């Protein structure tokens, strides 16, 4: 039996490491801390020591006792927790849980909406069966303007059509409310395009509009940058290119740095590093005048992007028809 403090400590450590079960640990505890235990023996020695040694030795022995108690407890709990009580085959699948899924277009739509809600934009809505006036005339697309060819239209009756974009919601909002206006609208739109890998006669748009005093082209760029970062990730960049949309002037096509390759060039961006996402620009004076705004006071910007396009770029989907096929193998992936 070891007798000095250090010997006892070393021996106890070895004894505990060797202990294979709780009973063994309890036995060791009796060996060291029981009535005839080694530590107890040391404790008994204290009273027999001289005054000057008693204090120091006493402290050391008591420290050893405390350490030993902790060591027993620690080892005991280690042994208890590692004991193998079960033998479960975890390669078996768990109980089946409901496997519902939001449609990928809904997921992207909600993501876009939440980015804009967080920037203080209201979400507006409007009818899918729209008056020609709201869809075209009020947006500076008069009858017989070649810009109408850009949007082949389904008609339900003279003057009544299926909206070709979400922009009529801009007009309805501006006619109803006074600036400042900060809104987006998401919704289904219709164009008479033959069905192929990049066209369906029905698609989803997100439309944005900001009107106030002193809103500038630079603000448009800033807001689009925030939007793109929110949806595609914080390193995505925005580039504007000249383009034409009758309801904006200057008008711009918005491109983003390719989120697939990070702008280095890949098949998705056709090697250019940039992907065109949608139109934008400063709201045309004719549009503002049409809704009765004073163009010497108010100005602003608008943009319109396709939700399908965002989803296709974000997830590398190559065929727009898949969104409306509702194949569970497709929907289940997102």
């Amino acid at each position, binding site marked *: 039996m070891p007798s000095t403090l250090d010997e006892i400590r070393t021996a106890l450590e070895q004894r505990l490491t060797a202990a294979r079960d709780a009973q063994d640990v309890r036995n060791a505890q009796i060996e060291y801390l029981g009535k005839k235990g080694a530590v107890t023996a040391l404790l008994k020695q204290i009273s027999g020591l001289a005054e000057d040694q008693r204090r120091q030795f006493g402290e050391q022995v008591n420290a050893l006792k405390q350490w030993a108690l902790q060591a027993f407890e620690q080892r005991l709990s280690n042994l208890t927790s590692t004991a193998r009580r079960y033998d479960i085959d975890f390669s078996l699948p768990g109980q089946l849980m409901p496997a519902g899924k939001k449609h990928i277009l809904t997921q992207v739509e909600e993501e876009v909406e939440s980015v804009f809600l967080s920037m203080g934009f209201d979400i507006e809505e409007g009818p899918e069966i729209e008056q020609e006036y709201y869809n075209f005339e009020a947006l500076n697309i008069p009858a017989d303007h070649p810009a109408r060819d850009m949007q082949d239209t389904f008609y339900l*009756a003279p003057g009544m059509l299926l909206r070709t974009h979400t922009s009529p919601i801009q007009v309805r909002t501006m006619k109803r409310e006074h600036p400042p206006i900060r809104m987006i609208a998401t919704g289904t739109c219709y164009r008479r395009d033959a069905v192929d890998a990049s066209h369906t006669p*029905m698609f989803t748009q997100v439309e944005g509009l900001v009107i106030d005093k002193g809103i500038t082209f630079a603000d448009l760029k800033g807001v689009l940058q925030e939007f793109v970062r929110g949806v595609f990730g914080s390193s995505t960049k925005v580039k504007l290119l000249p383009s034409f949309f009758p309801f904006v002037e200057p008008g711009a096509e918005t491109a983003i740095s390719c989120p697939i390759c990070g702008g280095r060039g890949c098949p998705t961006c056709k090697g250019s590093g940039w992907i065109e996402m949608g139109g934008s620009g400063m709201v045309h004076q004719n549009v503002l005048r049409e809704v009765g705004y004073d163009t010497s006071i108010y100005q602003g910007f608008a943009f319109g992007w396709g939700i399908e396009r965002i989803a296709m770029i974000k997830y590398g989907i190559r065929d727009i028809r898949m969104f409306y096929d509702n194949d569970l193998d497709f929907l289940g992936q997102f």
Partner: protein
Amino acid sequence: MRVKLSALHAAIDFDYTPEKLVTKLGDIGIEIESTERTDVMFKDVFVARITCTALHPTHHKLQLIDLDLGPRGTTSVCTAATNVREGDIIPVAIPGGKTADGTAIATRMFGTVESFGMLCSWKELGLDGDLLSSEEKEGILHLGSGAIVGSPFEEAWPVADTAFEVSVTPDRGDALSVLGLARWIEVLKARDTDQPFDMGDIKLPLPSSLPRARNDGDLSVTIEDQSLCSSYIGVLVQDVASGPSSHAFRTQLYQLCVRPVSRIVDMTNLCLKQYGQPTHAFDYDRLQEHRIIVRTSLPGETIVTLDGMLRSPESGTLIIADAAGPVAVAGVMGGLASSVTAATTRIVFEIAHFDPRAVARASRHLGIKSDAAYLYERGTDPGLTVRAVPSVLSALVREQCLGSYVSRVASAGIPVPAKLPLSLDVDQVNGYLGSNLDATNMRTLFGYEGIVSKVTGTTLSVTPPSFRGDLTSWPEYVEEIVRMEGYDEFPSHTPNLVLRRGSESPLKALCKRLRQMLVGIGLVESRTVSFVRESSVTAMGLPPAPLVLNPLTVDWDALRPTMAVGLAGAAVRNLSRGREGFASFEIGKTFSVHGQSFDEETRLGLLLAGKWQDANWTTPTTPASIFVLKGIIESVLRDLHVPFGVVSSDSPLLENGASILVSSETTPLGTLGILRHDVGALLGLERDTFYAEFSVDALLESIQPISFKEFSRFPSLRRDIAVLVDSSMTAGQLQTIVAEHGGPLLKAIVVFDNFQGGSLPEGKKSVGFSMEFASPDRTLFGEEVDALVDSVEAALATRLGGILRRTRV
């Protein structure tokens, strides 16, 4: 618009590579959709003249051809081609050479005759078949007069080139010609070198006066409404000779990507493609009284257009008339009666500037899409083009030997009024762009585009060139500043806006919530097209759906009055691919028509078919059933705090006796049930399908506000009973009695059993209830609960004749 690089080089000098040009044009808003490079793939092909033809002595299908190769001497070949005659100028591949597809040419024996090469068709030369006439594609290619005999074919024909497909936005009519693109290339050069735009860099002939003409023909031009036609010039050409265009002219057409037709048509096409100016040729002798009147059409006037169709332009359509009536729809299409024929000897070329809207209106109303209308709608240049083109055309007449001379130029509406300057405020521009440019910066930027500007303090007076019809208001000039400075050069910052919360409509929020709930329950969301087939909808017995006047296909000729069609389509697609179950919902608009007005409503459709729950080793399969569907609806309505009751429904979509109408107080919310079998069959579903459709608007109205109710903190007691009753008795009827007699302490009733058959007597069923009792303020005694159960049992026995099967604590 398709055009080749060589045509651009012929119009302006520049040293951008094709790739660079595409990028640079894109940066200023002219998109080149695609480029296609063609190389010379053949070798040793020369232009030759046929000097003699003879039949092969033994091979009857072959001819012996002697060829003059100019400085290269002479040679002879055998050919099976039939379209070759003495004097023809044709391409020949000589031994040692190869054709475009790689076939090597060598000396060959045909019987006893040696052939030193091969005459070539367009295919052997790798030419673009789309740009050749049908004659040119038949047999051996013929070169027109003027091709140099003995020259290598690649020098005689612009084979190696790059074709651009230019796609311009509707405001860029000024870029729809070689001249237009050359001007934009000049803008690029000006910007790169920081020099002002210089029209002098354009190499195309741009005369600035009307052609000289002999005054020996009679032709008068009158414009009735100058707001619809600002200027009109008629050029009369005498002694017209028909035939194909010269070789030089023909190869120029190849560079312009224009297919040749005839000398006259080729000339009008060249003006259109080269200068962006549509022109038309009338047979002078078929114009009554040799008069041209530009006017609007009268009611009832008709015209047979060049395509042979009888047209009835709406009254007020801009037309060209002679003394007798309409001879052309202005800017859209000419009339057949005044058109040029083989017998024509005198022509009037029309060169005019029509109002874009007037042409567009006529083109749309008559359903005629012509190249001329496409250009006019997008705006032509009233100044330069109308001044230059008549002279250009006249020069071409002489060059092409089309007629003996130009005789008489009749015009109206000349000179074209100059554009008025517009005043631009520098601060306003900067306030619009968020930029910090000064007046001098802006003047320099305008200068690149040929926009003349004068600076006075912080104001610019700007005047556009005549070809920029799009510049009419100050924001349009702002766009030019952005275009020239570079869209990407502008600063970007987020607007200073008042801090506030973004909001969405309660309906939108409810839709989101419903989606979340249904996804949590295990349904997949579908998004289906809003179009349906009208005849299917009618066959289902639904009210008429709004019809699409111009549907894409007959299968999509109406708007959906129900979500069932789309969801059924999605189910069929998935089940037919081996899926054993489909449980899906869609939230979207349904449409209805009431007389002249249309309505739309946001609805939720739910469809279950096949398995509801897939099986694995822990979980048994659950088939979809009407009670799975009812459970989903009950769970959603409870979660939304919508109180509801049900009655049987008469929905035309659902089976009679297997469908209910769910209402909240007096508001109908929706229906659910088994899809009628014939409706399912119509939609392609073979098995039992469970379908529900709810109005989201109605749900929104029926949501009750939530307020806290005190609940019992004492243990509850549970008692089960089962009762044998007539099969006709409903669980609901029994439940009502249980509730009435259970008293206020009865907290909940659960139906735990509903059984029929087995050992039970015919016409009877057993229904089991589990009742939970609780008091808000104390622990209940078993005895008092038993007394309540006794009273429930007594009521069931006396009121329904029910036989108590067992009582269990």
